[in-house]
């Protein structure tokens, strides 16, 4: 077990290292090279040279990479080149805002989806099951940002029941009730996507367990259906669900770029899109790395959790990722 944990963590570090190389290489592969990308356009050649020297762009590529990654490790994410603000100062608040939105959507969809999936597994192909598969078909085929726009138009513009966008009203910064009102629409949009997936997962993982021999034994013993489902089946059915939740953790940080853009939510995804349009590459690189860190940690947690919860998992060689 310990060996497995160590190997798996080393693997994650390796993956992160490769991602940082990928991000770095991307900037260097740009047409015109990093000078073109990182310097403000319209500089005179002399000024460009001075700025390139200040940014350290006249050093060799490996040295640049090492100094960049070194800064990252110490929490120095670089500066924006328009106003020379530290990237961290813009980035970290948006992470918090995104998490507020995503955790709300995530919890809501979990609370609905898991009981619904369990119910559907006991009544396969019933009305409720058909409804949920209809919803998941819609959820997978619908552009989420479009759903957001439609909701905005109906509930905010036509009916004026809910606020159109942003996190707070201008005069009610920090008011919790106001925040809740602003959360309703984006959370609805986001939870539809989650719901579509989670109902399916919990249903299929429940069904898999319900078809096993020990469940038949439990029924044959004369246990009530309620006991069979909740005592015997649910415990084992939760294992794969937990894994998927771990794998989805990173979505909490970076999964909402489009929804945030539609509802003008001041989160990390919107920041990323805005900075992409403004061509602030140091911010883009930092966000890509930060999100990747969350992804890798999420995957690692999912694997570890799975290994802890399910004693059947083997930690042998090559069993790194759940197949």
């Amino acid at each position, binding site marked *: 077990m310990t060996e497995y944990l160590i190997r798996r963590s080393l*693997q994650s570090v*390796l*993956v*992160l290292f*490769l*991602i940082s190389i*990928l*991000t770095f290489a*991307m*900037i260097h*592969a*740009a*047409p015109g090279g990093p000078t073109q*990308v990182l310097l403000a356009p319209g500089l005179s050649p002399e000024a460009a040279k001075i700025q390139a020297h200040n940014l350290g762009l006249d050093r060799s590529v490996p040295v640049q990479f090492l100094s960049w990654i070194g800064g990252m490790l110490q929490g120095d994410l670089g500066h924006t080149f328009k106003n020379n603000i530290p990237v961290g100062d813009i980035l970290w608040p948006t992470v918090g805002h995104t998490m507020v939105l995503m955790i709300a959507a995530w919890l809501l969809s979990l609370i609905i989806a898991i009981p619904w999936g369990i119910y559907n597994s006991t009544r396969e*192909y019933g009305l409720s099951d058909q409804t949920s598969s209809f919803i998941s*078909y*819609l959820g*997978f*085929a*619908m*552009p989420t*940002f*479009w*759903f957001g*726009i*439609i909701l*905005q*138009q109906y509930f905010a*513009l*036509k009916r004026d029941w809910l606020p159109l966008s942003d996190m707070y009203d201008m005069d009610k910064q920090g008011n919790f009730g106001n925040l809740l009102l602003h959360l309703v629409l984006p959370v609805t949009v986001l939870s539809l996507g989650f719901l579509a997936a989670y109902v399916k997962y919990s249903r299929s993982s429940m069904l898999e367990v319900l078809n096993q021999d020990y469940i038949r034994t439990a029924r044959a013993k004369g246990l009530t259906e309620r006991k069979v489902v909740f005592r015997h089946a649910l415990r084992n059915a939760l294992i794969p669900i937990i894994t998927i939740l771990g794998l989805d953790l*990173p*979505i909490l940080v*970076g*999964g909402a*770029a*489009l929804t945030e*853009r*539609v509802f003008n939510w001041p989160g990390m995804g919107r920041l*990323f*899109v805005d900075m*992409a*349009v403004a*061509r602030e*590459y140091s911010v*883009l*690189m930092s*966000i*890509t790395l930060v*999100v*990747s860190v969350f*992804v*890798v940690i999420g*995957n690692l947690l999912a694997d570890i959790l799975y290994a802890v919860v399910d004693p059947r998992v083997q930690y042998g060689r090559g069993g790194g*990722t759940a*197949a």
Partner: protein
Amino acid sequence: MSDAKVLPPIPEENRYEPREKRAKARTVEARPEGPWKTGAKKFMRNPFAVAGLVLLLIFIGIALLAHWLAPYPPNKLDLMFPNLPAGSSGHLLGTDELGRDVFSRLLYSSRISLTVGFSVAFVSVIVGTLIGAISGYFGGWVDTIAMRIVDVMYSVPSLFLNILILAIFGAKASYMIWVLAFTSWMGVARLVRGNYLQLREMQYVEAAKAIGVSDWRIIFVHLLRNSSAPIIVTATLMVGGAILSESALSYLSLGIQPPSTSWGLMLSNAQASMLTDPMQALYPGLCILIVVLAVNFVGDGIRDALDPRKTTIPQRRLDQWRKRFSKSGI
């Protein structure tokens, strides 16, 4: 003598027949159906899959014939009549903020969306199959390197990577196809690798090796044939995903650039002018929804049709069985 048994008649198939007659009978006998033909039959019996296929074909037809079907050129401005409502004379779905005919723009947009969808699926399936096949068949360090690359690509959220690349290299339709393919081949690679890992242990592979078939021929002829069904299914489902990604990127103004038009771009325009013309956002989104739904139905239909373990039993018959079963009181 009286208790002599009467021999039972010789069964039909064991009876002696002259050789010519038997040969004749053999030629008349039809060849058994192959898996593809059975699959096609199963597919045609699935109403959702057929409906999806029909819708998809209609949209492909629209994309091909947009030039003749559209009443106006997609970029014909008519600044005298902006934001006309649907049903105005001459404009079936009205006009947008610059007086361009919405219906014509919808028709032309289907070209971009379908082109991007199919080309992304095509490129990423080829790349993914190549990488997955080689790493699954040879294993060893090739496999390790390829799978680490897949891990890395999986760990960067693809939307972010897409945006990053398009921001660096500039937004262009042709770039977008490559970028989307670059961030979506990993699923196919993993799938094909898993398949090849199993298939390479088969006896027919051993036999092929024994008679001197080269590794490459085994990979690209013998094994590819046997794992083509899941590849086709993934490719189909990937078309839908690519259409969605295209619309998202165009919506963020990092994809298709005007004067070209796509559904995502129309949505981004529609949101900008939603105070004056709230209905504009409805149509492009509906088009995306219908096309992606159709593609997903086709993909699911193909999967069910090619999966030999799955026999399609009509829902009604299942219900009847269940009813009888519960009545029997077992």
